[in-house]
Every structure is written in structure tokens, then in C-alpha cells.
């Protein structure tokens, strides 16, 4: 587990990360969401042991990570712009990584390389941005570290590649307990990958929850009540996060289980009602609006 406690980092009196405390459980895909400048990259670089926090701690399996080789052996960090040696090809980089990561699986690497149609003899500098990200991900996967930290790595990958990487992640999680930590400024990029999401804003964590928990505990209901009294009776006691009214049609977002909501609606007279599934985006909108933020402005643009 990666435990982050009260992590703070300032750059020239600007707080990039402000007292963040998060726990990243093993065998889950942790998504770190935030706008540009929210502190995602800084946080990942601190988790990777690249930069030293001003305050707080990062512990990887109970080991401090900064300047600790043993902790770093369990991490592979893919920066937003991964660096490859000048004039290097995939083979050159493989030789480097297999030198520094003892568990690096060369055979697996070349197998994946072929599968992803990446030429091992071609200069990496001639690769497209997406190809470079794929290659960096393959290095990360084949390094066989317990944690892989991806900074905006999935942004810009085409759906086929995303699916391919996602399958590999799933397989590696299943086989050896890989824990990916993925930072992105785009909520939709992470929706189908992450198990747990942390939302960073202005250096602080707005929320950190399991996706399933969030989905189960928030319901969106479209309903036409027979009368105002029915509506008051049905909604009384429910935690309403959001309510929209168009004519007689009410769209209500409530924090509650699906069964409880349906049971409550069954007790009143309704012309029509339906409990709708919520997208990750809608869940975030609801959660953050409660906290007083406009999520659309934060991460959806």
C-alpha cells in the first residue's frame, strides 16, 4: 500500500500540493483526477521519490520512498513526457531498464512490442506521441514493479490501445497484484479503468472514494409525482444532492441506495418514475457541487 500523509509541496511560495492524505490500496487502479496545475504530477513525482515533499510523508509498503532504492524497486514512474535517450531505440532502452530493474522481463517486453506493432530497431525519436506512451507503458509493465505510476499516460491513446493496455493491467493485477496509479485531467479517460478515484483541486484532495461505492450510494431519479404532497412525502428524509424541474418532470439526485429510493417512491402516488444509472462524470458533479465546487469548471472544461 502507498500511504500518503499530509503531503505538502511548494514551488516558489505557490502550494502545488497542500496537506494531501490518501491511501492507495494494492491491486486497485487508482485514478488521480484534477485540472492542469491541480498538483497531480507533483504528487506522482513525490510518490515516485523524484522530489522531496516539504512536509508530510510518502510510504511505499511502509518504506519512505525518497532516496530509498528498496522502495523505488517497487515503483515504475512514467512521466507525462517520458524521456528516452537520444538516438535510442526500444532495444537500447530495454537494455537500460533491464539493468536497473532486476525483475525486468525482456522476453515479455519483446512479445508485447510485437503485439503492439512497435519496431524495436526504429529510433524512438521518430515515434508518434501515442507510440512513445505505449512504449513507456510497456517498459513499466515489463519492469514487474508492484506499482506503476502513470502521469497523463492514457491521454491521447486510441481506444484500441487503451483497451489493450487495460487488458494487460487486468492480467498483471490478477497475476502479480500490480497496482496502477493513473493521473489524468480528463475524467472520461479514467471512467472505465479506475477502481478508486481521488479528486485533486488546487493542491488539495476534494474527495477520494471507491467508484463502486459512489455509484451505489448516489441515485438519479426521473419522476412525475401525482401531487405536491406526494413529492414532499417521497423526498422527506432523503439526502437530496440536486433537483431539477422541467414542467411536471423532476430529476432528482439523492444520496441513497437504489432499493431505499425505489421503496420510498412506491409509497406515494406517481405518474411515472425511473431510477437511472449515473456516469462517473455525473457522480463527480453531484459530489463536488455538494462541496461547493462546479466540477464542470474543474475537470470537464
Amino acid at each position: 500500500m502507498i500511504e500518503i500523509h499530509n503531503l505538502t509541496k511548494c514551488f516558489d511560495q505557490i502550494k502545488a500540493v497542500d496537506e494531501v492524505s490518501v491511501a492507495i490500496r494494492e491491486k486497485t487502479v487508482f485514478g488521480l483526477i484534477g485540472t492542469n496545475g491541480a498538483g497531480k504530477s507533483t504528487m506522482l513525482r513525490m510518490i515516485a521519490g523524484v522530489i522531496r515533499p516539504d512536509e508530510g510523508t510518502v510510504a511505499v509498503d511502509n518504506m519512505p520512498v525518497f532516496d530509498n532504492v528498496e522502495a523505488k524497486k517497487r515503483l515504475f514512474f512514467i512521466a507525462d513526457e517520458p524521456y528516452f535517450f537520444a538516438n535510442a531505440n526500444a532495444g537500447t532502452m530495454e537494455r537500460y531498464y533491464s539493468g536497473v530493474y532486476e525483475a525486468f522481463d525482456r522476453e515479455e517486453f519483446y512479445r508485447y512490442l510485437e503485439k503492439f506493432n512497435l519496431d524495436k530497431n526504429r529510433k524512438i525519436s521518430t515515434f508518434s506521441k501515442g507510440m512513445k506512451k505505449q512504449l513507456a507503458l510497456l517498459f513499466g509493465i515489463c519492469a514487474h514493479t508492484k506499482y506503476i505510476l502513470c502521469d497523463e499516460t492514457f491521454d491521447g491513446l486510441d481506444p484500441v490501445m487503451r483497451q489493450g493496455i487495460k487488458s494487460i493491467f487486468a492480467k498483471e493485477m490478477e497475476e502479480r497484484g500490480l497496482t496502477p496509479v493513473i493521473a489524468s485531467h480528463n475524467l472520461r479517460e479514467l471512467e472505465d479503468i479506475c477502481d478508486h478515484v481521488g479528486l485533486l483541486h488546487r493542491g488539495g484532495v476534494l474527495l477520494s472514494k471507491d467508484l463502486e461505492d459512489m455509484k451505489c450510494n448516489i441515485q438519479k431519479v426521473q419522476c412525475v409525482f401525482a401531487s405536491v404532497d406526494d413529492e414532499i412525502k417521497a423526498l422527506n428524509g432523503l439526502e437530496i444532492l440536486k433537483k431539477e424541474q422541467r414542467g411536471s418532470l423532476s430529476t432528482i439526485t439523492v444520496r441513497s441506495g437504489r432499493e431505499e429510493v425505489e421503496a420510498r417512491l412506491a409509497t406515494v402516488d406517481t405518474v411515472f418514475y425511473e431510477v437511472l444509472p449515473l456516469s462517473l462524470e455525473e457522480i463527480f458533479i453531484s459530489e463536488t457541487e455538494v462541496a461547493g465546487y462546479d466540477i464542470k469548471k474543474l475537470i470537464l472544461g
Partner: protein
Amino acid sequence: MTSRNSFWASCRENHKRRIWVWIVALILQLLVYGGMTIVYLSRIRGYYEEGTYRTVQAFREAMYQAARDALGFSDNVFPFVIFLGAIIGMQGFSYLYDRRKVDLYHSVPVAKSRRFAAVYVNGLTIYFVSGMVGLLCGMILAGAQGAVNALVLADAGMAFLWNLLLFLVCYHMMILAVMVTGSRFVTVCVFLAFSLFEPCVYEICEAFSLDFYDTYAKSFTDSAPKFSAYYDCITYAGRLKDMTEVGEKAKVAFPIMGRWLLLAAVFLAFTWIAYRRRASEAAGKSIAFSWLKPVLKVAVGIPGALLIGALVYDASHNSETLMAMGIIVSAILLCAALEVLYAFDIRCIIKNLPSTGIVVVGALAIFCTFKWDLTGYDSYIPKQNKVESIAILLDCYYDEYWDENRQYIPADEYIKENMFLTDAEPVLALAQMAQQTDIGDMGQGRTLHVLYRLKSGREKVRRVAVDYNDPQTEAYLNRIFQSDEFQHGIFQMMTDENYCDGLTKIRYSNGPVRATIPAKEAEALRTAWIRDMEQFDFTMAKDVMPCGQITMDYADYSYRQWYVYDTFAETIACLEKNEAFYPAKLNAKDIDYITVTNYHNELMQEDMEIGIEAREAAQAYDVDYTVKETFSDQAQIEQILSASHSTYLVSPWGNYEGTENNYSVEVVFKKDSAYPYDRNAYYFNYEFIKGQVPDFVAEATEYIDIE
């Protein structure tokens, strides 16, 4: 077999990233050693083919010397070594400038200490291996031409070590510069600041002391920069190259190399601390440590402003107002430039004004300290009871001094080692008088450089202005000159027991005569001269012209000279015994004719005062005022000889002021004269004694403007 993640694996991996540095280093080292060997030896071969060397042995010796010049100490090599130290140091750690590289290197499971060690050792390896390859190549080339012997090997080995240590200093300095900065340009600036800081501060102190302190003297002090390898190279590399003895070279070179090693170790220690404390996020910033910005600003701004101020002072013909303005303006501009450099943003030109204020105030404070002598430098005279001994150097007397190996040593160095005046009173009295006298009124060449050795163990050096024409001054100087401590300290002949070693012959000359005395007479002559010197004092030195000069010639072509005066009875008797004494005064009947040249300096001086434009307007430029006249009349020759003195015997004590510098006198002997003058010379130079130019000479050499 090494582990995939061992230190050597890290080194090997790092080498792959430094191929171009390997190539540059190898090319340079091959050029420096191999190229120079080819050029130097070819040149000697060319001379040989032209017949410059009479024997094969001479040619062989020249080849050895050429090989030593190419492979040994050289003042041409050190810029290459500095360049290699700088680029190897910068390239090795330049990954710290790039965030993407830092992300990679600092996230992989390789300890920072190991990464540092691998890059550092690789840098050394690149220099060492490329240097060895170059040296071996040079050796093979020299060996193939028979130009290698033990001396060449010893010289080359020592020079290689010298260059290696110089490399270490530059290498560490550059790595430290990389550690405290975040971009190449700023690194180069900081490297230059590190390199030039001490020499600059030294030069500034020197310039300000010379400009503002009347009593500042450089003699007796070893006030060269102590921590500048470049300064050492400029000062010593040429000297080491010229030295022939390996042991002597080692004596000079090893203490310097020891100092460099210490300097390199200090830089490395700072480098390591900076590396450990440097934040990864410093990549791309100008300065890696924010606290360093004001420190650098002050450290660069103040010396920079003072240096520019000193230049303005010289350029403005010593205007102190312009100097102060130059200091203020340059301090502000330097600070603004540094702020722009720190932020890579022209808008930051007036940022951090408090530190700019500190630089301006600091620079002005130093200027004021010198200008108004706030430290009391010029008024310093030690209390008599605090003085252990004194050494004085007269800028009007020149002698040559030699060490036990017959190597030349500077006068102040010799006097410092040998003169210990315990009678401090006359020197302190002269210093006291000097403070009440305006040095500008005295003209040049009238100062004593005084070294006060204090009982506390400290040493102070001051320049004391003295007026030779003042009777009180003359009395004090006579008291000093008459002391054995002074004479033993200034005349090496009096104390050097090894003066006979290598002595080949003794000569005596009154100008035209070159008489030879057997070397076995040296001790008798010396003893007589020392006894005669008991009558020597300042008045004699100032007012009396010597009548002759004794020269001792040595096997290594060095020589020593000492003067004989008319009153030196014992010396003259000894010379007469050896039939070598000839009076300074010549007999007119031996002279064929005398040519007198009047340079008319007074007319040239007038022209100078008119100014260039006026001279051009008057078309008076390039006028030759020289008037030459030959006198062959015996009576005239007699008068001229009575009024003149051999140039050969003028000026041991600066009494050149006792002769007329407007005239030169050329004395030509009759070919059939029995007088034993030097037949190799066509004429002999004489000078008129001040105020004794005969009227007929003045008239005959008067300048007449024919236009």
C-alpha cells in the same frame, strides 16, 4: 561477472551516454601530445637538415628537449585541460538541467550516491584514459625518432600528473557550478565566477591600493592568488618548462599540485553537499538554491562594480568622481543583469532592490575605505619596541641575486631572507618624515620598500618616500648603509661562501679596458673589497662615481659584478698586483676623436607641450633635433674626458641623475694607441657629468632651424 545493477554496470551504462565526450577528449589529447610531438620533432629535424647542429650529439640533445617540450610541462596545454575539465564536468551532470531526464534518473532504483559516483568516476576515466592514449601516442612517436630518454619520461610523467590535478580542480569546479545552477548558460557564468573570483578580487585590491595608498608596496609579499589554478599555470608552467633539473621541477611543482589537490578536495566536498541538497525541481531554473541568488549577486556585483570603477579611474585620468559614478552605475547594471539572468525575464530588471542596494552600498563602502584610508593604511608606522627587525629594498639600486643552485632570485626575496636590521630607529624616523612630505614633490626613484618584522610574528610592508637631498634623510640613510646588517643583506658577495663554485675568471673594467685576473685571486680580491666597503655609506653611493667594475664569470655563463671606487685602496692594490687596474680617467693622447650627440630633449619637450594638433598645424612633426659633432682636437678631447664618465660605470645607485641625459659621448681610440682598450669595440660610450658640458660642445651641437 558484475550484477546487472552494480556500480560498474552503472558506469558502463553512463559511458554509453558520453560517446561524444570520449571522442572530443581523445581528439584533443591526441592533438596536444601526438600533434605537438610531431611538430616539435619535425622542426628539429628541419634545423638538422639545414645544418644548424654541428654534431649528432647536439641534434640528439635538441630532439630530447623538443620531446620534453611536447610531452612535458608546457604553457600551451593548460587551456585544453581547462576546456576538457569544463565540458566533461558539465556533460556528466547536465541531466540535472532537464526535468524529463531527472524524472527518469531519480525515479529508477539507483541510489543518488551511486549515480553521482558513476558519473564522476566516468568523467575522470575519460580524461585519464584519453590523456594516457595521447601521451603514449606521443611517446611512441618520439621513441621512434630516438627522442625519449629517462629525463623525457620523468618530465612527461610529472607534467601528466600536473595536468591531471589541474583537470581535477576545473572538473570539480564545473560540477559544483552545475549543482548550483539549472541551465547551461548560467552554469558557464558561475564557472567563470568561481574561476576568476579570487584573481579578480586580488587585482581589485591591488589596483585600489596602488590608486589610493601612497605607502602601498608589493615587494616582500607573496600576495599572489592562492586558490587559482589558472594563475598558478600562467605563473609556473613556463618556468617549469624552462627548468632542466627534474628535482628542481619537483620542488616547485609538487607543492603547487598539493595545493590543487586540496582545492579540488574542497570543491568536491561542496559539490557533494550541493548534490545531496539539490532539489530535483531545480531543473531548468537558473539557480538551484534560492538563498544563493542574493549571495551570488553580492559576490559578483561588488567585485564587478569595483573592477569597472578601477577601469573608469584609469580611463578618466584618475577622476575619483567618475570612478564613484562608475561603481554605482555598474553595480546597478550588474544587479539588473543578474536578476534578468535568474528569472530569464527582462521584466525582472528591477526585482529584489534591497540586495541591489546592498551591492551598491557595499561597493561604495569599499571605495570610501580606500579613498579616505579608513583603515589607516598610510599612517601605519609600528612602535619601535614592537619591531623585531627590518629589511629595506631601495628602488634605486639593482643587483642580481642567485640561490645555492645558481638560479636567479628576485631582489626582494633575497633581501627578505638576508637582511635583518635591528636598528629600527632611522627607518622609523624616515617613515615618520615621509608622512609629512608630499610624495609627488619628490619625483621618481626615491622610495624605500620597508618590511617590518614585528615581534608578534606579523609582517607589514610599506613604501617610504625619501628625499635624497634632505640632509636629515641622508644622515639616517648613512646610519643604515654603514651597518653590517644592511651591507650583508644587500651585497650577496659579502656573505655567499660558495661564490667561488664554478668561477672561471675575474675581469676588471674601467669602461674601455677589459683586464683579466686569475680565478685564484678571487678570495684576496673579495677580502680587500669587503674591508674597503667599511667606508661605504649612502653619501658615497649617491655622490661618487665608481672608477671600475669587477666581474666574476661562472661556468654556467652567469656573472656577478661589484663596483670599485677611487678610495678603495686595498682593492685597487690587489688589482694593481695583478696588473689589472686602470684609472677611470683616460689620457687624451690615446684618443683619436670623440663624437658628441646632443638630442635636444628640451625642444622635443616643447613640441610635446604644444600638442599634436598645433604641431600638425605648424608642420612641426617628426622633426629630428639631434645634432652630432666630432671633436679631434687634443685640448677639446681633454676637456670632454674631464667632464664625462664611462656609461659602463654609471647608475649602480641611481646616480644616473648625476649625468646629462641630453648628450651621448662616443670615444674612439687611436688604432696605434698602446692603451689596452678592448679592440673588439669601435667606440666606447661616455656621459657628461651633470652641469659639466663644455661650452664649446654646447655651442657646436646647438640646433639651428634652417627653415
